[in-house]
């Protein structure tokens, strides 16, 4: 996990991020590889994100029902669940699943490429491996996580509608109206924006861990493992920062 002292690790990562911004926006652009990574990263996570989104929406609805019923506030369930999903649960659950699935696979892939000298082989084959491997993957995760989150939100909201209909009857139109009328600009936009940062963190940390994997087979496993642990942790820290910032901006 954090086998290195925290500050050394953070410094190394900051340096890595700096290199991403320095090198990432100068030619040669690896557009083909980037599109391929977007496809792989987005597509790989679809089933997992879909299932977790569905369960999240349904469980939230079914569990809040008894409590809400005590106060005779069942008609508030769609609004409450909708807000919970869109502001917090959708982004964070999707990001954590994403970190587990994509962070580890990037860490393991780049780690094994490092250990078997494939990264050096790219370097001597006229390719900047940082651009070809790291920049493409980080850009892909940064872009795909928001898309996946939107998808998970939509599926979760639909699951919540299904959950409501298990114990009562609501029409889709009424449900949608209930959810949407309670949603404000300040609920949707900050939640959406923070997912870009989550995606960036997952990609960057996965690549950092893999790119600097230690020699040997354990190095690969360690890279995959610590990519997940560290990026999950960073996601929570970023989430905390996001809530503070939106609070300061008066959007909470």
């Amino acid at each position, binding site marked *: 996990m954090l086998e290195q002292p925290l500050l050394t690790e953070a410094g190394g990562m900051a340096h890595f991020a700096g290199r991403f911004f320095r090198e990432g926006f100068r030619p040669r652009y690896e557009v083909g590889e980037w599109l391929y990574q977007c496809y792989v990263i987005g597509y790989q996570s679809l089933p997992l994100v879909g299932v977790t989104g569905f369960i999240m929406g349904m469980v939230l609805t079914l569990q809040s029902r008894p409590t809400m019923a005590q106060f005779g506030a069942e008609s508030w369930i769609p609004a409450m669940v909708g807000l919970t999903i869109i502001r917090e649960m959708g982004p964070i659950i999707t990001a954590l699943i994403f970190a587990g699935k994509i962070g580890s696979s990037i860490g393991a*892939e780049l780690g*094994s*490429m490092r250990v*078997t*000298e*494939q990264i*050096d*082989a*790219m*370097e*001597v*084959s*006229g*390719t*900047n491996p940082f651009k070809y491997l790291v920049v493409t993957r980080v850009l892909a995760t940064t872009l795909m996580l928001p898309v996946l989150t939107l998808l998970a939100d939509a599926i979760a909201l639909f699951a919540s509608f299904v959950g409501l209909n298990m114990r009562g009857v609501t029409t889709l139109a009424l449900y949608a109206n209930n959810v949407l009328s309670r949603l404000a600009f300040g609920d949707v936009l900050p939640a959406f924006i923070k997912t870009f940062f989550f995606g960036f963190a997952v990609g960057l940390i996965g690549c950092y861990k893999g790119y600097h994997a230690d020699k040997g087979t354990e190095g690969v496993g360690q890279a995959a493992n610590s990519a997940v642990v560290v990026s999950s942790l960073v996601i929570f820290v970023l989430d905390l920062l996001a809530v503070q910032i939106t609070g300061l901006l008066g959007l909470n």
Partner: protein
Amino acid sequence: MLPEPETLPAAPPAPAEMATPETVLAVEHVVKSFGDNHVLQDFSLALHRGENVVVLGKSGSGKSVLIKCVIGLLVPDAGRITVLGQDVTRLDHAAMDQLRARVGFLFQSNALYDSMTVRDNLLFPLRRHWLAHRRAEEAALVRQALEDVGLGHTADMMPAELSGGMRKRVALARTLILRPDILLYDEPTTGLDPVTSREISHLIREVQQKYGTAALIISHDMSCVRLTADRVALLVDGRCYAEGTYAQLQALPDPRIHEFFA
């Protein structure tokens, strides 16, 4: 543009017959340390056109470090490395890439891209060096490179499906496809069984004779050294301890040299 297979220049005469052999690679007084680990200390060596030079050294003596300094994967702390007339420590990225297109590097671990087929492995350096050809030419180059190493039928296989010796051959084909002027071999026979090892050693000779490439071969496998070397340089304590033909070194009484031949 690469020459077509049919119009390849004939192998140049053996280095011994040349009046003034042209130096294609010169390592001069190179120093490289990792912290307190002083790996190379004032190492010097020259490689002439068409010649196979073996650098012989024990495991961990810095052979891979030396070869990585030559290709620019590591930067020496001091000294000069000249490859095909260019000082590699002073080249920028673009110039370095151009130079690397003319220098083939066979990694100790082969470093085949295991997410790609053999064909895509071979095409990778070709395309990345902007040497993109028409499809038909690409196919011909891949076929030729694979036939050179005796693996014409493996183009659509994945590296994981190949044996150790085949992987080594594919890795060699991947460097040959660029028709390099210099080949760098990092322990080409390590980890292979004796028979396969001998085949690879013969292959190294064949490549030298067919394309006239100069090669710097890193090894501690004496049978490979005997089969491939025109000249042997001994790397001991970070220095070029002794230099000469296999027979010359073998005849020396010095115990530090003799232990390699025992």
